[in-house]
């Protein structure tokens, strides 16, 4: 990838010598910079005036601002390619911000790498590849709690209570579960760190409508339990229905911001984006 591609990619196809499964994209060697002071009156999490893109590539986000208040559900919606997932990755430290800052819980974490943001309290559920497929459900949860040194059993019981379907399959390999159950395992894994904020990147991508409703129910339950949730969603209508705050992104910039209800009633948002 980063090499000048001397073999034209042919070597990747021979699985008898190379193992392409589960390879990482994140640069784990990047070191964190110092943590700064937050600003007075900040929301719980705010990514302010974020501008940047992947690696040395062009900017994808342009002066984009996303914020989540304590105990709220915030959703990021927008058309395909609007930079929804990118905005969330920017908040999580997975791309280079050229301008702007990310502040969490009264601290400026702009310089932290993703690993350290997890330790700072961010629970992140990627859109794909968000479980350990060959490990059992219980082992997935244990790995979620890897950074913790205290007793994890209580948290595990809470998670099992929240997702009874996951509890029933605790000894089964996570990769053998259905799509909806896998998403539940992925959310459960993130909850095991006892995060102070949960970030979900399209949790309902590729699951059936019934499963989607169930997932949304669980997410509301999590938020009502006091954990702020930030979510990127394709299913804009359903997402706005449950959102305390919604951000509509277009081409990497804030187009509309408001409570879910306000945006649902906004004529322009409905016409251009929600389809009537």
């Amino acid at each position, binding site marked *: *990838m980063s090499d000048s591609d001397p073999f034209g990619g042919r070597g990747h196809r021979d699985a*008898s010598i190379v*193992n392409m499964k589960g390879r990482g994209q994140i640069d784990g060697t990047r070191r964190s910079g110092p943590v700064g002071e937050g600003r007075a009156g900040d929301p719980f999490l705010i990514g302010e005036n974020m501008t940047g893109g992947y690696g040395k590539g062009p900017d994808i986000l342009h002066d984009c601002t996303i914020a989540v208040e304590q105990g709220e559900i915030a959703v990021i919606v927008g058309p395909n390619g609007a930079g929804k997932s990118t905005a969330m990755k920017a908040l999580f430290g997975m791309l280079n911000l050229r301008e702007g800052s990310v502040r969490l819980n009264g601290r400026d974490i702009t310089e932290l790498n993703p690993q350290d943001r997890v330790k700072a309290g961010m629970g992140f559920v990627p859109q794909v590849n968000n479980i350990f497929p060959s490990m059992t459900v219980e082992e997935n949860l244990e790995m979620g709690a890897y950074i913790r040194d205290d007793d994890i059993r209580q948290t595990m019981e809470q998670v099992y209570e929240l997702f009874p379907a996951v509890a029933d399959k605790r000894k089964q390999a996570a990769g053998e579960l259905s799509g909806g159950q896998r998403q539940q395992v992925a959310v459960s894994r993130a909850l095991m760190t006892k995060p102070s904020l949960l970030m979900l990147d399209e949790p309902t991508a590729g699951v059936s409508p019934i499963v989607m409703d169930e997932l949304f129910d669980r997410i509301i339950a999590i938020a009502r339990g006091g954990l702020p949730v930030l979510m990127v969603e394709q299913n804009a209508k359903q997402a706005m229905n449950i959102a305390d705050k919604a951000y509509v992104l277009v081409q990497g910039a804030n187009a509309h911001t408001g409570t879910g209800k306000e945006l649902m009633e906004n004529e322009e948002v409905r016409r251009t984006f929600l389809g009537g």
Partner: protein
Amino acid sequence: MEILNAIVVFLNFVFIPAAAYGAQLALGALGVTLIYGILRFSNFAHGDTMAFGTAITILLTWGLQTIGISLGPLPTALLALPFAIALCAVALLATDRAVYRFYRRKKSDPIILVMASVGVMFVMNGVTRLLIGVDEIRFDDGARFVIDVRSFREWSGLSEGLALRSTQVITLVVAVLVVWALFWFLNKTRSGKAMRAYSDNEDLALLSGIDPERVVRLTWIIAAGLATIAGTMYGLDKAFKPFNYFQLLLPIFAAAIVGGLGSPVGAIAGGFIVAFSEVAVTYPWKRVAEYLGFDTGSAMLQLLSTEYKFAVSFVILIIVLLFRPTGLFRGKSV
């Protein structure tokens, strides 16, 4: 009586040697499969790592013998083994630091690491030869037999004898212990689970707070242990010769692929499948057949001469890759 004789011949010339050889291959294949699963490339230097580890074991064994330490009926090499593993692990960690880490940091494609491992193979090959020479070395001391041919004949009254060498018993016992320890480590300990998590999904492991470099270091240390033990067992059972270890790479890879690359259970099964096929195909079955009452005339009933034993691994490899590329136990390669 005739049937018993046939069984004894079979045990003596096929079953026992193949079981010991299979255990050695299984230990080697476990190392290969572990590196494939976790570091994501086929390590062609594994055969020469085995040679290097064994060479250190031999040097340490000689040292212990000179100062008069021995293990009585057991080979002195067993005492030298833990120290040799430690030294071999240091060598592998140094290699990782000097070679593989650079490509890992750059996130190079695994195929580039495969090619780098070929380079490491040649270097290790040379280092081992400089260290201990190219000649065949036997370094088994202590009791040679658990059961020898003559006492077996006297005890059983059969015309065929059965020999069970102590190195064969040691190989099997050590293999069982090592495999048990490895599985316990991978399935029950926090570090072992972290290694499996990293193998499953690097990014998620990183985001769960698992230190990737620590997983890599642990993998090399375990691989060094497996390679040194496999090499020493092979050397005790047969003889140590660097070139033979280089050639062992083929049956070891065949074993790992037959079982399914990335699957530890598969590596063990694959080791025994390859070993039993190799021995069964190259053994002249004439005597067994005669005891069973078949007249074979002048035919030796040997399918392949022993010089061609590597063809067996090749054929098994091709058949598996054609008809079941994921291996018997569905590894990571699909």
